[in-house]
């Protein structure tokens, strides 16, 4: 039978293919072109003041500059001057005055001035797209932006926050995609009905970054063309093409054949297979995504501190990390990703069924109970849910798993309609407040408040004390003290919260050995194509 099958497959394909061409010569990727196999079907807009997706950040990070950004060769250094050469802080820490870097041009040829910064940041505030909160949390709004976001001359830009915030918080937020600087003249020329050029910029670029957009074909590919005048130095790769390849096996074949230089979405099995091959190397980088599950505090059983603690002992952290999540996730038990300022490395919990049973018995649930886990239909998440189902059962908790699309599950989570939610959270901007704000801040737990953006609210977790501590960390001026405050908050959170963080994402990127310098961006930022050489 085996023989029949093989010859059958060979037969039909050969029948169709052989007479047409026989052996063909195939183009390898040219030496000045970078071809990446990835997934880009999440991109919905290329407007930096609107985009809020992982793949969108990757492309925008290579097309735009911002006042402050990162050095891809040393991400741990934090924010560094980019389009702003220097800055001063005055008015009790509320006014930031940026001096623009002279001589920088947009790909259109227009010079980058403080007016462009003013236009871009006001645009972000006025358009009110989803990520606008990253800027509006400093008190900017459409009514006051003409006083608070101002170009005092061509080379000086000044912003004034509504109160004193930690300096590092403000500057970290200015590295986010929402604060990227667009070419105001070009964008204004494409405005339609006062849309701030949004309709046009969704599918075009107007930046001063290393590359400009040639085209973006949704779910298919995007192509970037080098900006030879990039102020950090002309990149070696003249063209960058990201091809949407949804299937890992296909990505692997393309990489093995040299038809792509980098494959970004290989499954652990495919990574293991290519790692052993000559001419291919695999790099690992910690990313920001935290995989966790959380217990809805509106459910009486799940709000019992003993039950909460028991749950944290009912997770086979190491077992999962060393089997189906191997190479893709590392065990992590705090809300800030490792590499973030204020990270907490301690991992106090491990699988301990007996201890969990004792805790449940103390809580009066020794006979067990039933729960539903809601999870999005994605292989690794469902596998985690199944592992939890297994370990929970050993302590007498019967779990049913409900799967759905991302949107379906999210809708239930936001409506507080669940027992246990299993999913992931990624930071929105490279400052500890991004996760503290969602995991450890809940100023109003009432249903009417509708703080659906905050995970603490979604889980009905009422935390007046911790909310205060989080707010205090937000205004602490001293960097070290601030970092320590986040460590302290996380220690307490780790003990008492209904959140059970389990893993932090590792991205494994497979590349041809001749490709050097590709940076995925760690937990704090997005990919950098421009340092690549080959």
């Amino acid at each position: 039978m085996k023989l029949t099958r093989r010859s059958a497959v060979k037969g039909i394909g050969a029948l169709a293919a052989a007479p047409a061409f026989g052996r063909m010569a195939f183009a390898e990727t040219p030496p000045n072109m970078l071809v990446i196999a990835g997934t880009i079907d999440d991109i919905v807009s290329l407007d930096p003041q609107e985009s809020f997706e992982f793949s969108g950040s990757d492309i925008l990070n290579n097309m735009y500059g911002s006042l402050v950004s990162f050095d891809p060769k040393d991400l741990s250094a934090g924010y560094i001057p980019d389009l702003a050469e220097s800055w001063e802080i005055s008015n009790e820490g509320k006014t930031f005055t940026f001096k623009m870097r002279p001589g920088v041009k947009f790909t259109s040829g227009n010079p980058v001035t403080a007016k462009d910064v003013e236009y871009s940041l006001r645009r972000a505030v006025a358009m009110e797209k989803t990520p606008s909160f990253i800027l509006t949390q400093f008190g900017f709004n459409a009514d006051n932006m003409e006083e608070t976001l101002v170009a005092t001359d061509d080379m000086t830009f000044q912003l004034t926050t509504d109160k004193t915030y930690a300096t590092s918080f403000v500057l970290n937020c200015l590295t986010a995609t929402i604060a990227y600087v667009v070419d105001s003249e070009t964008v204004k020329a494409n405005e339609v009905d006062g849309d701030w050029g949004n309709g046009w910029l969704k599918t075009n670029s107007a930046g001063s970054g290393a590359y400009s957009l040639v085209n973006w074909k949704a779910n298919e590919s995007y192509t970037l063309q080098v900006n030879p005048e990039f102020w950090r130095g002309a990149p070696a790769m003249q063209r960058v093409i990201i091809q949407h390849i949804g299937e890992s096996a296909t990505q692997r074949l393309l990489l093995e054949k040299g038809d792509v230089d980098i494959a970004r979405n290989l499954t652990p099995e495919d990574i293991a297979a290519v790692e052993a091959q000559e001419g291919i190397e695999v790099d690992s980088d910690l990313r920001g995504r935290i995989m966790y599950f959380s217990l809805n505090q509106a459910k009486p059983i799940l709000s019992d501190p003993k039950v909460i603690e028991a749950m944290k002992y009912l997770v086979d952290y190491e077992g999962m990390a060393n089997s189906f999540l191997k190479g893709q996730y590392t065990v992590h038990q705090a809300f800030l990703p490792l590499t973030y300022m204020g990270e907490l490395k301690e991992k106090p919990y491990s699988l301990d069924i007996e201890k969990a049973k004792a805790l449940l018995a103390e809580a009066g649930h020794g006979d067990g109970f039933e729960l539903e886990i809601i999870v999005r239909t994605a292989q690794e998440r469902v596998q985690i849910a199944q592992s939890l189902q297994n370990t929970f059962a050993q302590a007498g908790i019967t779990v049913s798993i409900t799967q759905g699309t991302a949107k379906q599950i999210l809708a239930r989570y936001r409506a507080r309609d669940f027992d246990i939610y299993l999913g992931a959270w990624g930071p929105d901007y490279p400052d500890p407040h991004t996760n503290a704000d969602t995991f450890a801040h809940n100023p109003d737990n009432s249903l009417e408040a509708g703080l659906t953006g905050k995970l603490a609210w979604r889980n009905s977790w009422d935390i007046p004390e911790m909310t205060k501590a989080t707010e205090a960390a937000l205004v602490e001026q001293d960097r070290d003290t601030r970092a320590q405050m986040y460590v302290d908050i996380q220690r307490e959170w780790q003990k008492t919260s209904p959140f059970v963080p389990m893993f932090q994402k590792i991205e494994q990127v497979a590349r041809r050995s001749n490709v050097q310098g590709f940076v995925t961006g760690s937990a704090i930022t997005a990919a950098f194509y421009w340092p690549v050489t080959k």
Partner: protein
Amino acid sequence: MTDTTAAAGRRRTAPLVRRGAALLSTLGVIAVTMFGLIFVTFIIGRVMPVDPVLAVVGERASKEIYDRVYFEMGLDKSLVEQFWIYLTDVLTGNFGTSTLTARPVVEDIARVFPATLELATIGVIIGIVFGVPMGVTAAVYQGRWPDHVVRLFGLFGYSMPIFWLALMGLIIFYGNLDWVGAPTGRVDVFYQDIVPPVTGMILIDSAIAGDWTIFWNAVSHVVLPAAILGYYSLAYISRMTRSFMIEELSKEYVTTARVKGLSERAVIWRHAVGNVSVPLITVIALSYANLLEGSVLTETIFSWPGLGQYITNALLNADMAAVLGGTVVVGLTFVGLNMLSDVLYRVLDPRARS
């Protein structure tokens, strides 16, 4: 004399009237079908437990932004009102804007449908060219080894998961033998967007532009996925051909023809296959329509930017404008192919002509 003229006149006008009536009723059927299709898809889209607003604003949006978009999308209006707005938009050719691609749905479909059309057409041609002779052979040698070989071969194509066939095909013909192009869509990345789009089908467009390098590159990309789809439809077509032929060969006129001393070849290919071709058209049209819906798995593995991937992706992301637009195209395709097979019936079957 007068009588005959009148009769002749009647004979002349009657077909015209009949044809007009037939045309009207066909158009009526199409209109009702399309209306039903749009209606059902619309309702499913609205009752689906997916929040279209979240699809637009994302998970992190504040309540204010959420509410603003909710009203912008007209979701506060009644279902009837929403449907009416949608229907009038569709009738003026406006299918809305996809939230997933930020482009008008019409533009998106103009991009993805030709890709599927190209693939499906070559696929169904492969299915016919190999499937029909195989089915005929199997029927003629019923119960003997050629029949068994065809059945096994067909069964394999029909029962193996298509993604497995596609991956095996890739490993062998792309990975090992290097006979076909990389599974990166319709042409190598370096050749994208070079030929001006006329039909959207890259084989035709490159031929029009006279760019034979790109043409052959496109051929090398389309041949494997088309062969996989072709194999799949071949399996179905050959099985149906076989059973039609077996039935046909048992009929009396075949025996008569043989007795009259006609060659076996003429009996089979001219008489029997000729008669079988009528029901076969329905089978082929259905296979073709199936392929034209877009084969999601094949498209995913070959990164083929076709309709199947587009609709699936839209559905998973609650991009209802795109789902509805795609569904209308699929519906029109089915209706169109049905009409085409009706026309072919009339051409091929003298009885249907009178």
